[in-house]
Protein backbone atom coordinates (compact mmCIF):
# COMPACT_ATOMS: atom_id res chain seq x y z
CA UNK A 1 0.00 0.00 0.00
CA UNK A 2 2.88 2.33 -0.51
CA UNK A 3 3.23 3.83 -3.90
CA UNK A 4 5.61 4.32 -6.68
CA UNK A 5 4.85 7.86 -7.55
CA UNK A 6 3.10 10.96 -6.42
CA UNK A 7 1.27 10.85 -9.72
CA UNK A 8 -0.99 8.16 -8.30
CA UNK A 9 -2.43 10.41 -5.63
CA UNK A 10 -2.81 13.87 -7.07
CA UNK A 11 -5.47 12.98 -9.65
CA UNK A 12 -7.35 11.01 -7.03
CA UNK A 13 -7.32 13.89 -4.62
CA UNK A 14 -8.26 16.33 -7.36
CA UNK A 15 -11.18 14.16 -8.39
CA UNK A 16 -12.58 13.55 -4.95
CA UNK A 17 -11.90 16.86 -3.29
CA UNK A 18 -14.87 18.75 -4.76
CA UNK A 19 -17.10 15.73 -4.20
CA UNK A 20 -16.03 15.34 -0.63
CA UNK A 21 -16.76 19.01 0.01
CA UNK A 22 -14.02 19.24 2.59
CA UNK A 23 -11.39 21.87 3.15
CA UNK A 24 -8.37 19.86 2.00
CA UNK A 25 -6.13 22.88 1.54
CA UNK A 26 -7.28 24.63 4.70
CA UNK A 27 -8.33 27.87 3.03
CA UNK A 28 -11.52 28.51 4.96
CA UNK A 29 -12.29 30.85 7.84
CA UNK A 30 -15.15 31.22 10.26
CA UNK A 31 -17.24 34.39 9.98
CA UNK A 32 -15.88 35.48 13.35
CA UNK A 33 -12.55 34.19 14.68
CA UNK A 34 -10.04 35.13 17.33
CA UNK A 35 -7.05 36.97 15.91
CA UNK A 36 -3.59 35.41 16.14
CA UNK A 37 -1.50 36.96 18.88
CA UNK A 38 2.20 37.86 18.78
CA UNK A 39 4.70 39.19 21.28
CA UNK A 40 8.19 40.61 20.75
CA UNK A 41 11.16 38.61 21.98
CA UNK A 42 11.96 41.54 24.27
CA UNK A 43 9.09 43.66 25.61
CA UNK A 44 9.74 47.20 26.81
CA UNK A 45 6.47 49.02 27.41
CA UNK A 46 6.35 52.82 27.65
CA UNK A 47 6.09 53.85 31.27
CA UNK A 48 3.77 56.84 31.05
CA UNK A 49 0.21 57.03 29.76
CA UNK A 50 0.36 59.24 26.66
CA UNK A 51 -1.92 62.05 25.57
CA UNK A 52 -1.55 61.02 21.97
CA UNK A 53 -0.23 58.11 19.92
CA UNK A 54 1.81 58.11 16.76
CA UNK A 55 0.00 55.83 14.31
CA UNK A 56 1.41 54.46 11.07
CA UNK A 57 -0.40 52.59 8.30
CA UNK A 58 1.50 50.71 5.57
CA UNK A 59 0.79 48.13 2.95
CA UNK A 60 4.23 46.49 2.95
CA UNK A 61 3.84 44.11 -0.04
CA UNK A 62 4.97 41.04 1.92
CA UNK A 63 8.55 42.26 2.14
CA UNK A 64 8.98 42.03 -1.61
CA UNK A 65 10.41 45.50 -2.02
CA UNK A 66 10.34 46.37 -5.68
CA UNK A 67 10.79 42.88 -7.05
CA UNK A 68 8.42 42.67 -9.99
CA UNK A 69 5.93 39.92 -9.23
CA UNK A 70 3.65 38.36 -11.81
CA UNK A 71 0.42 39.76 -10.42
CA UNK A 72 1.15 43.40 -11.19
CA UNK A 73 2.26 42.43 -14.70
CA UNK A 74 5.66 44.10 -14.49
CA UNK A 75 7.52 40.81 -14.14
CA UNK A 76 7.24 37.07 -13.65
CA UNK A 77 8.61 36.45 -10.17
CA UNK A 78 6.61 34.26 -7.79
CA UNK A 79 9.13 33.44 -5.10
CA UNK A 80 11.86 35.22 -3.15
CA UNK A 81 14.95 33.97 -1.40
CA UNK A 82 15.26 34.24 2.36
CA UNK A 83 18.10 36.73 1.88
CA UNK A 84 15.90 38.97 -0.25
CA UNK A 85 13.05 38.86 2.26
CA UNK A 86 15.22 39.47 5.30
CA UNK A 87 16.96 42.35 3.50
CA UNK A 88 13.67 44.01 2.64
CA UNK A 89 12.26 43.39 6.11
CA UNK A 90 15.35 44.91 7.70
CA UNK A 91 14.88 48.03 5.57
CA UNK A 92 11.16 48.23 6.42
CA UNK A 93 11.90 47.73 10.12
CA UNK A 94 14.51 50.47 9.97
CA UNK A 95 11.94 52.95 8.65
CA UNK A 96 9.39 51.83 11.25
CA UNK A 97 11.93 52.15 14.04
CA UNK A 98 12.90 55.59 12.79
CA UNK A 99 9.28 56.78 12.65
CA UNK A 100 8.80 55.08 16.04
CA UNK A 101 5.01 54.67 15.95
CA UNK A 102 3.04 53.57 18.99
CA UNK A 103 0.70 51.72 16.65
CA UNK A 104 1.41 50.18 13.26
CA UNK A 105 -1.32 48.92 10.94
CA UNK A 106 0.11 46.75 8.15
CA UNK A 107 -1.42 45.02 5.18
CA UNK A 108 0.00 42.26 2.97
CA UNK A 109 2.21 40.89 5.71
CA UNK A 110 3.27 37.25 5.28
CA UNK A 111 3.69 34.93 8.22
CA UNK A 112 4.06 31.53 6.56
CA UNK A 113 4.34 31.81 2.79
CA UNK A 114 6.60 30.11 0.32
CA UNK A 115 6.85 33.30 -1.75
CA UNK A 116 8.54 35.02 1.21
CA UNK A 117 10.69 32.05 2.22
CA UNK A 118 8.47 31.34 5.26
CA UNK A 119 9.81 34.39 7.11
CA UNK A 120 7.28 35.38 9.80
CA UNK A 121 7.21 39.07 9.02
CA UNK A 122 5.03 40.10 11.98
CA UNK A 123 7.52 38.56 14.37
CA UNK A 124 10.39 40.08 12.39
CA UNK A 125 9.03 43.61 12.80
CA UNK A 126 8.28 43.06 16.48
CA UNK A 127 11.81 41.84 17.09
CA UNK A 128 13.44 44.67 15.14
CA UNK A 129 11.47 47.72 16.26
CA UNK A 130 10.26 49.15 19.60
CA UNK A 131 6.83 47.56 19.03
CA UNK A 132 5.89 44.90 21.57
CA UNK A 133 2.56 43.24 20.74
CA UNK A 134 0.64 42.31 17.64
CA UNK A 135 -2.52 40.66 16.44
CA UNK A 136 -2.83 39.12 13.00
CA UNK A 137 -5.72 38.13 10.73
CA UNK A 138 -5.02 36.11 7.63
CA UNK A 139 -6.71 37.13 4.42
CA UNK A 140 -5.06 34.56 2.17
CA UNK A 141 -4.34 31.13 3.56
CA UNK A 142 -3.85 27.87 1.73
CA UNK A 143 -1.65 24.87 2.26
CA UNK A 144 -1.07 25.02 -1.44
CA UNK A 145 -2.16 27.38 -4.21
CA UNK A 146 -1.69 25.52 -7.51
CA UNK A 147 -1.21 28.65 -9.60
CA UNK A 148 1.82 30.61 -10.78
CA UNK A 149 4.07 28.64 -8.44
CA UNK A 150 2.60 30.33 -5.38
CA UNK A 151 2.38 27.21 -3.22
CA UNK A 152 1.81 27.62 0.49
CA UNK A 153 0.59 31.03 1.57
CA UNK A 154 -0.52 32.76 4.75
CA UNK A 155 -0.73 36.50 4.34
CA UNK A 156 -2.90 39.14 5.93
CA UNK A 157 -3.32 42.19 8.08
CA UNK A 158 -1.77 42.99 11.42
CA UNK A 159 -1.92 45.61 14.13
CA UNK A 160 1.31 46.11 16.10
CA UNK A 161 1.51 48.13 19.28
CA UNK A 162 3.82 49.29 22.02
CA UNK A 163 0.88 48.89 24.41
CA UNK A 164 -0.89 45.66 25.35
CA UNK A 165 -3.76 44.48 23.19
CA UNK A 166 -6.96 43.05 24.65
CA UNK A 167 -9.83 41.31 22.88
CA UNK A 168 -8.96 40.82 19.24
CA UNK A 169 -11.18 39.46 16.49
CA UNK A 170 -11.15 38.70 12.78
CA UNK A 171 -14.47 39.49 11.06
CA UNK A 172 -14.91 38.00 7.60
CA UNK A 173 -15.95 40.22 4.72
CA UNK A 174 -17.90 38.76 1.77
CA UNK A 175 -16.07 36.84 -0.94
CA UNK A 176 -16.19 37.97 -4.56
CA UNK A 177 -19.43 36.35 -5.78
CA UNK A 178 -18.64 36.55 -9.48
CA UNK A 179 -15.61 34.27 -9.15
CA UNK A 180 -16.25 30.57 -9.71
CA UNK A 181 -16.18 28.21 -6.74
CA UNK A 182 -12.66 26.94 -7.37
CA UNK A 183 -11.23 30.44 -7.66
CA UNK A 184 -13.11 31.59 -4.59
CA UNK A 185 -11.74 28.61 -2.68
CA UNK A 186 -8.13 29.63 -3.31
CA UNK A 187 -8.65 33.41 -3.49
CA UNK A 188 -8.11 36.08 -0.87
CA UNK A 189 -10.72 36.30 1.86
CA UNK A 190 -10.90 39.86 3.08
CA UNK A 191 -11.68 40.79 6.64
CA UNK A 192 -11.74 43.44 9.31
CA UNK A 193 -9.28 42.93 12.15
CA UNK A 194 -10.12 44.67 15.42
CA UNK A 195 -8.28 44.87 18.69
CA UNK A 196 -8.76 46.57 22.01
CA UNK A 197 -5.87 48.90 22.85
CA UNK A 198 -5.02 48.92 26.54
CA UNK A 199 -3.39 52.30 26.87
CA UNK A 200 -3.19 54.05 30.21
CA UNK A 201 -6.33 53.33 32.21
CA UNK A 202 -8.55 53.27 29.15
CA UNK A 203 -10.39 50.15 28.04
CA UNK A 204 -12.60 51.81 25.45
CA UNK A 205 -10.03 52.31 22.71
CA UNK A 206 -10.32 50.11 19.65
CA UNK A 207 -8.22 49.76 16.53
CA UNK A 208 -9.51 48.36 13.23
CA UNK A 209 -7.57 47.41 10.12
CA UNK A 210 -8.61 46.15 6.72
CA UNK A 211 -7.55 45.62 3.14
CA UNK A 212 -10.41 45.93 0.67
CA UNK A 213 -10.66 43.99 -2.58
CA UNK A 214 -8.39 45.44 -5.27
CA UNK A 215 -10.28 44.25 -8.32
CA UNK A 216 -13.95 44.98 -8.33
CA UNK A 217 -15.68 43.43 -11.29
CA UNK A 218 -18.91 43.05 -9.34
CA UNK A 219 -18.83 45.79 -6.72
CA UNK A 220 -17.37 43.66 -3.95
CA UNK A 221 -14.83 46.37 -3.19
CA UNK A 222 -17.64 48.70 -2.20
CA UNK A 223 -19.20 46.00 -0.03
CA UNK A 224 -15.85 45.69 1.76
CA UNK A 225 -15.55 49.45 2.28
CA UNK A 226 -19.10 49.64 3.58
CA UNK A 227 -18.46 46.62 5.82
CA UNK A 228 -15.38 48.30 7.25
CA UNK A 229 -17.43 51.41 8.02
CA UNK A 230 -20.14 49.34 9.69
CA UNK A 231 -17.54 47.98 12.12
CA UNK A 232 -16.30 51.52 12.81
CA UNK A 233 -19.90 52.64 13.34
CA UNK A 234 -20.53 49.77 15.77
CA UNK A 235 -17.70 50.95 18.03
CA UNK A 236 -18.68 54.61 17.69
CA UNK A 237 -22.26 53.78 18.62
CA UNK A 238 -21.03 51.90 21.70
CA UNK A 239 -19.20 55.04 22.83
CA UNK A 240 -15.73 53.74 22.07
CA UNK A 241 -12.83 55.76 20.77
CA UNK A 242 -11.97 54.03 17.52
CA UNK A 243 -9.33 54.32 14.82
CA UNK A 244 -9.56 52.35 11.62
CA UNK A 245 -7.13 52.21 8.77
CA UNK A 246 -5.90 50.23 5.83
CA UNK A 247 -5.60 49.90 2.11
CA UNK A 248 -9.09 50.64 0.77
CA UNK A 249 -8.05 50.34 -2.87
CA UNK A 250 -10.00 53.37 -4.02
CA UNK A 251 -9.47 57.12 -4.34
CA UNK A 252 -10.66 59.92 -2.05
CA UNK A 253 -13.92 61.70 -2.96
CA UNK A 254 -13.64 64.48 -5.56
CA UNK A 255 -10.29 63.22 -6.84
CA UNK A 256 -11.62 63.57 -10.37
CA UNK A 257 -11.69 67.33 -9.97
CA UNK A 258 -7.96 67.60 -9.27
CA UNK A 259 -6.23 64.44 -10.55
CA UNK A 260 -6.62 61.42 -12.82
CA UNK A 261 -9.02 58.66 -11.81
CA UNK A 262 -8.29 56.20 -14.63
CA UNK A 263 -5.67 55.01 -17.10
CA UNK A 264 -2.70 55.26 -14.79
CA UNK A 265 0.54 54.75 -16.70
CA UNK A 266 1.91 52.11 -14.29
CA UNK A 267 -1.00 49.74 -14.90
CA UNK A 268 0.26 47.36 -17.55
CA UNK A 269 -1.98 44.33 -16.93
CA UNK A 270 -4.05 43.38 -19.97
CA UNK A 271 -6.21 40.73 -18.32
CA UNK A 272 -9.43 42.69 -17.67
CA UNK A 273 -10.01 40.76 -14.47
CA UNK A 274 -6.84 42.20 -12.95
CA UNK A 275 -6.97 45.76 -14.20
CA UNK A 276 -7.20 48.05 -11.19
CA UNK A 277 -6.65 51.50 -12.62
CA UNK A 278 -10.15 52.79 -13.34
CA UNK A 279 -11.79 54.41 -10.32
CA UNK A 280 -14.19 56.59 -12.29
CA UNK A 281 -17.23 54.75 -10.99
CA UNK A 282 -16.04 54.89 -7.37
CA UNK A 283 -15.96 58.65 -6.75
CA UNK A 284 -18.33 58.56 -3.77
CA UNK A 285 -17.44 55.19 -2.26
CA UNK A 286 -15.47 56.80 0.58
CA UNK A 287 -17.78 59.79 1.00
CA UNK A 288 -19.60 58.33 4.04
CA UNK A 289 -16.30 57.61 5.80
CA UNK A 290 -15.10 61.15 5.14
CA UNK A 291 -18.47 62.55 6.28
CA UNK A 292 -18.66 60.62 9.55
CA UNK A 293 -15.02 60.41 10.61
CA UNK A 294 -11.92 62.55 10.83
CA UNK A 295 -9.17 61.49 8.43
CA UNK A 296 -5.41 61.43 8.86
CA UNK A 297 -5.08 63.51 5.70
CA UNK A 298 -8.07 65.89 5.64
CA UNK A 299 -9.92 65.94 2.34
CA UNK A 300 -9.17 69.59 1.62
CA UNK A 301 -5.48 69.04 2.37
CA UNK A 302 -5.46 66.22 -0.15
CA UNK A 303 -7.38 68.17 -2.78
CA UNK A 304 -5.05 71.15 -2.40
CA UNK A 305 -1.99 69.05 -3.22
CA UNK A 306 -2.95 65.49 -4.14
CA UNK A 307 0.54 64.46 -5.33
CA UNK A 308 1.94 65.01 -1.85
CA UNK A 309 -0.43 62.36 -0.50
CA UNK A 310 -0.30 59.66 -3.12
CA UNK A 311 0.49 56.28 -1.63
CA UNK A 312 0.70 53.79 -4.48
CA UNK A 313 2.37 52.89 -7.73
CA UNK A 314 3.24 49.51 -9.20
CA UNK A 315 6.10 51.03 -11.21
CA UNK A 316 9.36 51.00 -9.29
CA UNK A 317 10.85 53.43 -11.81
CA UNK A 318 7.98 55.89 -11.49
CA UNK A 319 6.57 57.79 -8.52
CA UNK A 320 3.48 57.52 -6.33
CA UNK A 321 0.45 58.39 -8.47
CA UNK A 322 -2.70 57.66 -6.46
CA UNK A 323 -3.94 57.56 -2.86
CA UNK A 324 -5.32 54.23 -1.66
CA UNK A 325 -4.34 54.14 2.03
CA UNK A 326 -6.27 55.78 4.86
CA UNK A 327 -6.83 56.23 8.58
CA UNK A 328 -10.09 57.40 10.14
CA UNK A 329 -11.18 58.13 13.70
CA UNK A 330 -14.23 59.31 15.60
CA UNK A 331 -11.76 61.08 17.89
CA UNK A 332 -9.22 63.73 17.00
CA UNK A 333 -6.06 63.66 14.96
CA UNK A 334 -3.55 66.32 15.96
CA UNK A 335 -4.02 69.06 13.35
CA UNK A 336 -1.55 68.96 10.46
CA UNK A 337 0.15 65.87 11.90
CA UNK A 338 -0.80 63.59 9.03
CA UNK A 339 1.83 62.98 6.39
CA UNK A 340 2.62 60.50 3.68
CA UNK A 341 6.20 59.21 3.73
CA UNK A 342 6.89 59.32 0.03
CA UNK A 343 10.60 60.11 -0.11
CA UNK A 344 13.46 61.77 1.71
CA UNK A 345 12.08 65.11 0.58
CA UNK A 346 8.45 64.32 1.38
CA UNK A 347 8.21 62.60 4.74
CA UNK A 348 11.90 62.03 5.36
CA UNK A 349 12.22 58.39 4.26
CA UNK A 350 13.04 56.77 0.95
CA UNK A 351 10.11 54.36 0.86
CA UNK A 352 9.78 53.81 -2.89
CA UNK A 353 12.21 50.82 -2.91
CA UNK A 354 10.47 49.13 0.03
CA UNK A 355 6.90 48.52 -1.17
CA UNK A 356 4.37 49.49 -3.82
CA UNK A 357 2.64 51.55 -1.12
CA UNK A 358 3.90 54.52 0.91
CA UNK A 359 3.15 54.68 4.62
CA UNK A 360 0.86 57.26 6.19
CA UNK A 361 1.60 58.62 9.67
CA UNK A 362 -0.53 60.68 12.03
CA UNK A 363 -0.69 61.74 15.68
CA UNK A 364 -3.90 60.55 17.40
CA UNK A 365 -5.23 62.01 20.66
CA UNK A 366 -6.14 59.40 23.27
CA UNK A 367 -6.15 61.39 26.52
CA UNK A 368 -9.32 60.56 28.54
Amino acid at each position, binding site marked *: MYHESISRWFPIVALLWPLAGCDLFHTSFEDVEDAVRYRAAVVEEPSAAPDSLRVMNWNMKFGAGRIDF*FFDCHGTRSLMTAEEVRGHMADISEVVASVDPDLLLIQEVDVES*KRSAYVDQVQFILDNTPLNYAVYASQWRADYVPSDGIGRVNSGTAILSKYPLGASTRYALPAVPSYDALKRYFYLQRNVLETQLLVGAREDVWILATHAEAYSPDGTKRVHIDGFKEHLDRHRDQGHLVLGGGDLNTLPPQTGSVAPVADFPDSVCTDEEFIADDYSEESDWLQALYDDYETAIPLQTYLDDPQAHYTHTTDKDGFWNRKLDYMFTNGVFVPSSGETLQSVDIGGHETMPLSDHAPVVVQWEVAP
Partner: protein
Amino acid sequence: MIRALTIVVVIGLIWPSSAAAESTRSAWSADTADLLPAGRTEVGLFGPARVGLQGDVELQAHPLWFFLAPHMGAKWRHHSGGSWSVASRHTLSYPTPLLSVLSREGTGGVLPVETEVPHIINLTQDILATYALREDQRLSARLGARLAAALGESTLPTIDVPLAYSRGAAWHEGFALEAGLSWSGRVVATLFGGLALDLFLLPAPEGSADDWHHAVELTPQLTWRISDSWALMAGAKFVQGSYPFGEQSHVLPLFDVTYGWGADD
Protein backbone atom coordinates in the same frame (compact mmCIF):
# COMPACT_ATOMS: atom_id res chain seq x y z
CA MET B 1 -17.17 9.78 1.67
CA ILE B 2 -18.34 7.73 4.66
CA ARG B 3 -21.56 6.93 2.81
CA ALA B 4 -19.59 5.78 -0.25
CA LEU B 5 -17.37 3.56 1.87
CA THR B 6 -20.42 2.09 3.58
CA ILE B 7 -21.99 1.27 0.24
CA VAL B 8 -18.80 -0.44 -0.93
CA VAL B 9 -18.61 -2.51 2.26
CA VAL B 10 -22.26 -3.53 2.16
CA ILE B 11 -22.20 -4.50 -1.51
CA GLY B 12 -18.98 -6.43 -0.92
CA LEU B 13 -20.59 -8.38 1.88
CA ILE B 14 -23.69 -9.33 -0.07
CA TRP B 15 -22.08 -9.85 -3.48
CA PRO B 16 -22.85 -13.38 -4.70
CA SER B 17 -20.13 -15.96 -4.70
CA SER B 18 -18.16 -16.18 -7.93
CA ALA B 19 -14.89 -17.39 -9.29
CA ALA B 20 -13.37 -14.23 -7.92
CA ALA B 21 -14.44 -15.16 -4.45
CA GLU B 22 -12.21 -18.17 -4.62
CA SER B 23 -9.19 -16.08 -5.42
CA THR B 24 -6.46 -16.34 -2.84
CA ARG B 25 -4.54 -13.23 -3.74
CA SER B 26 -5.14 -10.15 -1.71
CA ALA B 27 -6.99 -7.70 -3.85
CA TRP B 28 -4.35 -7.27 -6.52
CA SER B 29 -2.06 -5.48 -4.15
CA ALA B 30 1.00 -4.06 -5.84
CA ASP B 31 2.76 -3.49 -2.58
CA THR B 32 3.80 -6.89 -1.35
CA ALA B 33 6.70 -9.12 -2.37
CA ASP B 34 4.14 -11.12 -4.36
CA LEU B 35 4.28 -10.82 -8.12
CA LEU B 36 1.55 -10.95 -10.69
CA PRO B 37 1.42 -14.34 -12.38
CA ALA B 38 3.15 -14.48 -15.75
CA GLY B 39 0.73 -13.31 -18.41
CA ARG B 40 -1.43 -11.29 -16.03
CA THR B 41 -1.84 -7.53 -16.69
CA GLU B 42 -3.54 -5.01 -14.44
CA VAL B 43 -4.19 -1.33 -15.12
CA GLY B 44 -5.41 1.19 -12.62
CA LEU B 45 -7.29 4.34 -13.45
CA PHE B 46 -4.84 6.23 -11.26
CA GLY B 47 -2.43 3.49 -10.25
CA PRO B 48 0.32 2.00 -12.39
CA ALA B 49 -0.06 -0.68 -15.01
CA ARG B 50 1.62 -3.96 -14.03
CA VAL B 51 2.55 -6.91 -16.15
CA GLY B 52 3.61 -10.30 -14.82
CA LEU B 53 6.47 -11.87 -16.81
CA GLN B 54 8.19 -15.22 -16.84
CA GLY B 55 11.20 -15.54 -14.58
CA ASP B 56 9.87 -14.01 -11.38
CA VAL B 57 9.69 -10.50 -12.80
CA GLU B 58 6.91 -7.91 -12.88
CA LEU B 59 7.09 -4.65 -14.84
CA GLN B 60 5.37 -1.48 -13.73
CA ALA B 61 4.66 1.82 -15.47
CA HIS B 62 1.94 4.42 -15.36
CA PRO B 63 0.33 4.75 -18.78
CA LEU B 64 -1.08 8.23 -18.19
CA TRP B 65 2.15 9.72 -16.91
CA PHE B 66 4.66 7.70 -18.90
CA PHE B 67 5.14 10.26 -21.66
CA LEU B 68 5.32 13.27 -19.33
CA ALA B 69 7.59 11.62 -16.79
CA PRO B 70 9.21 8.65 -18.51
CA HIS B 71 9.73 5.83 -16.07
CA MET B 72 9.87 2.07 -15.77
CA GLY B 73 9.84 -0.15 -12.73
CA ALA B 74 10.63 -3.80 -12.25
CA LYS B 75 10.00 -6.06 -9.29
CA TRP B 76 12.15 -9.16 -8.94
CA ARG B 77 11.31 -12.02 -6.65
CA HIS B 78 14.45 -13.27 -4.96
CA HIS B 79 12.94 -15.82 -2.63
CA SER B 80 9.64 -17.61 -2.29
CA GLY B 81 9.38 -20.55 0.02
CA GLY B 82 7.16 -21.52 2.91
CA SER B 83 5.39 -18.44 4.18
CA TRP B 84 8.04 -15.95 3.12
CA SER B 85 8.60 -14.03 -0.08
CA VAL B 86 11.34 -11.50 -0.69
CA ALA B 87 11.48 -9.16 -3.67
CA SER B 88 13.17 -5.99 -4.72
CA ARG B 89 11.69 -3.18 -6.76
CA HIS B 90 13.66 -0.72 -8.88
CA THR B 91 12.18 2.26 -10.68
CA LEU B 92 14.10 4.58 -12.93
CA SER B 93 12.38 7.85 -13.80
CA TYR B 94 13.05 11.14 -15.56
CA PRO B 95 10.57 13.70 -14.16
CA THR B 96 12.06 16.70 -15.96
CA PRO B 97 9.44 16.96 -18.75
CA LEU B 98 6.60 16.81 -16.23
CA LEU B 99 8.20 19.48 -14.04
CA SER B 100 8.69 21.68 -17.11
CA VAL B 101 4.99 21.34 -17.93
CA LEU B 102 4.10 22.25 -14.35
CA SER B 103 6.24 25.38 -14.62
CA ARG B 104 3.70 27.75 -16.09
CA GLU B 105 1.66 30.88 -15.56
CA GLY B 106 -1.82 30.79 -14.11
CA THR B 107 -3.88 27.88 -12.86
CA GLY B 108 -1.92 24.65 -12.80
CA GLY B 109 1.34 26.50 -12.36
CA VAL B 110 2.73 24.28 -9.63
CA LEU B 111 6.14 25.83 -10.28
CA PRO B 112 6.94 29.45 -11.17
CA VAL B 113 7.07 30.08 -14.90
CA GLU B 114 10.69 31.22 -14.79
CA THR B 115 11.88 27.94 -13.18
CA GLU B 116 14.95 26.39 -14.74
CA VAL B 117 14.26 22.68 -14.43
CA PRO B 118 17.40 20.53 -14.38
CA HIS B 119 17.69 17.08 -15.91
CA ILE B 120 16.73 14.79 -13.04
CA ILE B 121 17.51 11.08 -13.02
CA ASN B 122 15.66 9.41 -10.17
CA LEU B 123 16.19 5.84 -8.98
CA THR B 124 13.83 4.40 -6.39
CA GLN B 125 14.73 1.06 -4.85
CA ASP B 126 12.84 -1.06 -2.33
CA ILE B 127 13.38 -4.35 -0.66
CA LEU B 128 10.08 -6.02 0.21
CA ALA B 129 9.50 -8.97 2.51
CA THR B 130 6.06 -10.54 2.78
CA TYR B 131 4.88 -13.12 5.29
CA ALA B 132 1.71 -15.09 4.49
CA LEU B 133 -0.31 -15.34 7.68
CA ARG B 134 -2.81 -17.44 5.79
CA GLU B 135 -3.52 -18.06 2.16
CA ASP B 136 -5.27 -14.72 1.80
CA GLN B 137 -3.57 -12.64 4.48
CA ARG B 138 -0.22 -10.89 4.02
CA LEU B 139 2.09 -8.91 6.26
CA SER B 140 4.76 -6.95 4.45
CA ALA B 141 7.69 -4.79 5.35
CA ARG B 142 9.87 -2.68 3.14
CA LEU B 143 13.00 -0.59 3.21
CA GLY B 144 13.70 1.81 0.42
CA ALA B 145 15.78 4.69 -0.81
CA ARG B 146 15.33 7.32 -3.47
CA LEU B 147 18.49 8.46 -5.19
CA ALA B 148 18.52 11.36 -7.60
CA ALA B 149 20.97 13.37 -9.65
CA ALA B 150 20.06 16.83 -10.96
CA LEU B 151 22.15 17.85 -13.91
CA GLY B 152 22.46 21.32 -15.39
CA GLU B 153 21.29 24.76 -14.28
CA SER B 154 18.53 24.65 -11.69
CA THR B 155 16.22 27.10 -9.97
CA LEU B 156 13.80 24.31 -9.13
CA PRO B 157 11.94 25.10 -5.88
CA THR B 158 10.62 22.37 -3.65
CA ILE B 159 6.93 21.50 -4.00
CA ASP B 160 5.83 22.25 -0.47
CA VAL B 161 2.82 20.03 -0.11
CA PRO B 162 2.58 16.68 1.69
CA LEU B 163 3.06 13.59 -0.52
CA ALA B 164 4.81 15.65 -3.20
CA TYR B 165 7.52 16.98 -0.91
CA SER B 166 8.25 13.53 0.49
CA ARG B 167 8.61 12.03 -2.96
CA GLY B 168 10.55 14.92 -4.48
CA ALA B 169 12.99 15.67 -1.67
CA ALA B 170 15.68 13.51 -3.28
CA TRP B 171 15.64 15.74 -6.37
CA HIS B 172 17.06 18.50 -4.20
CA GLU B 173 19.07 16.68 -1.56
CA GLY B 174 20.26 13.68 -3.56
CA PHE B 175 18.55 10.99 -1.53
CA ALA B 176 15.72 10.15 0.84
CA LEU B 177 14.93 7.05 2.89
CA GLU B 178 11.66 5.16 3.30
CA ALA B 179 10.33 2.29 5.36
CA GLY B 180 6.92 0.73 5.69
CA LEU B 181 4.77 -1.94 7.27
CA SER B 182 1.52 -3.16 5.80
CA TRP B 183 -1.21 -5.72 6.08
CA SER B 184 -3.39 -6.79 3.20
CA GLY B 185 -5.93 -9.53 3.01
CA ARG B 186 -9.47 -10.70 2.55
CA VAL B 187 -11.97 -9.17 4.91
CA VAL B 188 -14.94 -11.19 3.75
CA ALA B 189 -15.99 -12.73 0.44
CA THR B 190 -14.86 -10.36 -2.34
CA LEU B 191 -14.01 -7.51 -0.03
CA PHE B 192 -10.29 -7.05 0.68
CA GLY B 193 -8.64 -4.67 3.05
CA GLY B 194 -5.31 -3.04 3.51
CA LEU B 195 -3.55 -0.98 6.14
CA ALA B 196 -0.13 0.55 5.56
CA LEU B 197 2.15 2.67 7.70
CA ASP B 198 4.95 4.41 5.83
CA LEU B 199 7.78 6.54 7.11
CA PHE B 200 9.77 8.97 4.97
CA LEU B 201 13.08 10.29 6.28
CA LEU B 202 14.01 13.41 4.39
CA PRO B 203 17.38 15.15 4.61
CA ALA B 204 16.92 18.79 5.54
CA PRO B 205 17.81 21.53 3.05
CA GLU B 206 20.99 23.50 3.61
CA GLY B 207 20.53 26.19 6.22
CA SER B 208 17.73 24.35 7.98
CA ALA B 209 17.76 24.20 11.76
CA ASP B 210 17.22 20.43 11.63
CA ASP B 211 19.25 17.64 10.05
CA TRP B 212 16.22 15.60 9.01
CA HIS B 213 12.55 16.03 8.35
CA HIS B 214 10.02 13.26 8.25
CA ALA B 215 6.56 12.29 7.10
CA VAL B 216 4.34 9.46 8.28
CA GLU B 217 1.51 8.16 6.13
CA LEU B 218 -1.22 5.82 7.38
CA THR B 219 -3.34 4.35 4.61
CA PRO B 220 -6.42 2.22 5.32
CA GLN B 221 -8.28 1.04 2.24
CA LEU B 222 -10.93 -1.38 1.09
CA THR B 223 -11.01 -3.06 -2.29
CA TRP B 224 -14.09 -4.66 -3.72
CA ARG B 225 -13.01 -7.24 -6.23
CA ILE B 226 -16.04 -7.25 -8.49
CA SER B 227 -14.74 -9.97 -10.80
CA ASP B 228 -11.49 -11.33 -12.13
CA SER B 229 -11.37 -8.25 -14.33
CA TRP B 230 -12.58 -5.35 -12.20
CA ALA B 231 -11.86 -4.00 -8.75
CA LEU B 232 -12.85 -0.81 -6.95
CA MET B 233 -10.71 0.69 -4.22
CA ALA B 234 -11.65 3.38 -1.69
CA GLY B 235 -9.76 4.55 1.32
CA ALA B 236 -7.99 7.42 2.96
CA LYS B 237 -4.48 8.61 3.59
CA PHE B 238 -3.61 10.23 6.88
CA VAL B 239 -0.43 12.26 6.56
CA GLN B 240 1.54 13.85 9.36
CA GLY B 241 4.84 15.47 8.67
CA SER B 242 7.54 17.77 9.91
CA TYR B 243 8.73 19.61 6.84
CA PRO B 244 10.95 22.62 6.22
CA PHE B 245 7.67 24.51 5.85
CA GLY B 246 6.31 23.43 9.20
CA GLU B 247 4.34 20.68 10.89
CA GLN B 248 1.31 19.60 8.90
CA SER B 249 -1.44 17.00 9.11
CA HIS B 250 -3.84 16.05 6.36
CA VAL B 251 -6.51 13.50 5.57
CA LEU B 252 -6.91 12.69 1.89
CA PRO B 253 -9.60 10.55 0.28
CA LEU B 254 -8.45 7.79 -2.08
CA PHE B 255 -10.21 6.06 -4.94
CA ASP B 256 -9.14 3.81 -7.79
CA VAL B 257 -10.56 1.45 -10.38
CA THR B 258 -8.46 -1.46 -11.61
CA TYR B 259 -8.97 -3.57 -14.70
CA GLY B 260 -7.05 -6.81 -15.15
CA TRP B 261 -6.83 -9.58 -17.68
CA GLY B 262 -4.83 -12.71 -18.36
CA ALA B 263 -3.91 -15.58 -16.11
CA ASP B 264 -4.88 -15.17 -12.44
CA ASP B 265 -3.36 -17.22 -9.61
